């Protein structure tokens, strides 16, 4: 078990990186506490896997240092780091039995056969693999295979952290849920540091206590699922988390009113105050669930055209047109929805302002 620290890490796959865009990872400075369940969330190609491979030692970063419990391991190969990694596709030793698969990492480290047996049986029990131990690993279903990959990490009692690289990609939806719960259970039981890479927000938000959202080689925000939802620090977080993502409207500021091509939206005093000195492109952001949709005008409501209503079961998603902007609002099913036109209200406590993509706070 260990606290994992990344100190000013950057990585480029090019031999001589010059520009900022040459780097797959721009600048990562981050600490994962011992025993934490963390997720790295981001779209494909944002550098998640690169970051994971740097933590595990499969890649040596171009810049920066990696520390386990304060000890520098940047240049150490994975076998010297006491790290385990579960890959996107189940990686098994096809010709071996499940038992031998689980025993393999221990045997490679010269551990006595009796101790190996004890440990393998213990881990097989946790993972519900006891019945399969004598079977050949190649013949099992995808979820059992993925559990074996995980088991090969868990058998090592000295393992510092377990890294997951989109481990549920090949699992059926039904089993996905089951396996995710199993992971959570194992985390609570063994108190290991889990780092979980995924592009699926549901997976990240249900699995982890702490989610780091990555975008174009940078961690744009780290926080609890709730923080990420309520206070996205970057436009990307707002857009990527939540379904549908946050609405953004380019605007200019005048006093405590935002001008969105012609219409005025009232802002919170303090936000407006802080925004006054900001330079760069301003945008106003609001979550679809906080956007008020009313059948008649009043107060600071602004008029919008309704374009589409999608029924999602217990809520409905309304697509609206405000000038040239398209907005989405999600409404509970019992709320009436006007037919053609609606008046929108922007509750000041949920309306955020972003300057050049970053939240003003």
């Amino acid at each position: 078990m260990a606290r994992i620290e990344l100190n000013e890490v950057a990585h480029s796959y090019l031999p001589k990186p010059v520009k900022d865009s040459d780097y797959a990872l721009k600048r990562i400075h981050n600490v994962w506490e011992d025993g934490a369940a963390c997720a790295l969330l981001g779209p494909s190609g944002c550098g998640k896997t690169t970051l994971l491979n740097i933590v595990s030692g499969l890649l040596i970063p171009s810049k920066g240092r990696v520390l386990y419990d304060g000890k520098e391991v940047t240049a150490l190969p994975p076998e010297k780091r006491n790290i385990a990694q579960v890959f996107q596709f189940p990686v098994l030793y096809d010709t071996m039995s499940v038992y031998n698969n689980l025993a393999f990492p221990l045997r490679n480290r010269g551990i006595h056969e009796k101790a190996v047996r004890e440990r393998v049986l213990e881990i097989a029990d946790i993972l519900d693999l006891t019945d399969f131990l004598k079977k050949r690993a190649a013949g099992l279903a995808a979820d059992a295979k993925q559990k074996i990959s995980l088991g090969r990490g868990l058998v090592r009692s000295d393992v510092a952290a377990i890294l997951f690289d989109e481990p549920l990609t090949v699992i059926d939806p039904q089993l996905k849920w089951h396996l995710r719960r199993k992971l959570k259970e194992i985390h609570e039981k063994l108190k290991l540091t889990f780092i979980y890479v995924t592009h699926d927000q549901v997976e990240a938000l249900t699995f982890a206590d702490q989610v780091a959202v990555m975008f174009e080689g940078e961690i744009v925000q780290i926080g609890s699922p709730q923080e990420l939802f309520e206070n996205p620090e970057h436009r990307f977080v707002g857009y990527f988390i939540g379904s549908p993502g946050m609405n953004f409207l380019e605007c200019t500021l005048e006093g405590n009113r935002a001008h969105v091509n012609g219409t005025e939206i009232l802002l919170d005093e303090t936000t407006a105050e802080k925004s006054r000195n900001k330079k760069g492109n301003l945008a106003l952001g609001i979550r679809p669930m906080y956007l008020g949709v009313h059948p008649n005008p009043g107060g600071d409501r602004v008029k919008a055209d309704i374009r589409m209503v999608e029924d999602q079961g217990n809520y409905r998603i309304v697509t609206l047109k405000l000038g040239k902007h398209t907005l989405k609002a999600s409404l509970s099913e019992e709320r009436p929805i006007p037919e053609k036109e609606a008046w929108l209200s922007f509750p000041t406590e949920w309306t955020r302002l972003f300057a050049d993509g970053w939240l003003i706070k």
Partner: protein
Amino acid sequence: MEKWPNNRAWLLVLPVFVIVAFSAIIPLMTVINYSVQDIFGPNQAIFVGFEWFREMLADKRLHDALWRQFLFSGLVLVIEMPLGILIALAMPKKGWGVSLCLVTIALPLLIPWNTIGTIWIIFTRPDIGLFGAGMNSLLGIPFDHTARPLDAWITVMLMEVWHWTPLVALLAYAGLRAIPEAYYQAARIDGASAWSTFLYIQLPKMRGVLTIAFLLRFMDSFLIYAEPFVLTGGGPGNSTTFLSLYLVKIALLQFDLGPGGAFSLIYFVIVLLFSFIFYQALERIGKGDKV
């Protein structure tokens, strides 16, 4: 939903049937026809039953050729399979070296077979050949593949290994390249040694292509004709007379079509039988629930 048999669909199978008939069935039937008759001339033949089979199976020279053939194919497999895998493992994985290696290695495969025999005749000639003359005059080791059976065998084996190991290497290389990077990464994380990685990842993952390589090399080496025909002509004596050389001698040079036909069928059955056994055995290694 009910399905109607559409007999016109058989028409679509017809072209394949015709091709197979002319390329395999009719020649095979002809051979079977020969094998049970004593043929004196174009219109003179009498039915002899299994007489030719009995005679060929008891033929001492055929036995010798058969053992020679097994020894040859055995050596070919024992040398070419590991060597091919070794070459594949040593080949570069990326960069310009890959193309260079692939082309260089594939060169022997592109040369016509009788040309290969000719190349090796010249190469191993004791008087002027680079190899033969080199052995004789530079190293002082007497070497003459036209006079000494062992030298003839060494020459034929060298030629065969030079000619066909590239095929094994290319297949093994393709198999290696198809292994996802994650397997190697997992092996590193599990602390596997290079040998374990080879034994538990690379070798099992290459099983499919190696099965193909094994069967191809077995069949081709068992049927080898052109190269030894050009290089040694089966000599000195009968020391490199493999089955096909002996068969040609009987069927075409002596024009004994009956015994030749019987021989061909025996030959065919042996190749088929061993290919089947090998295939089953190699498949079994890969499957099965228990280890």
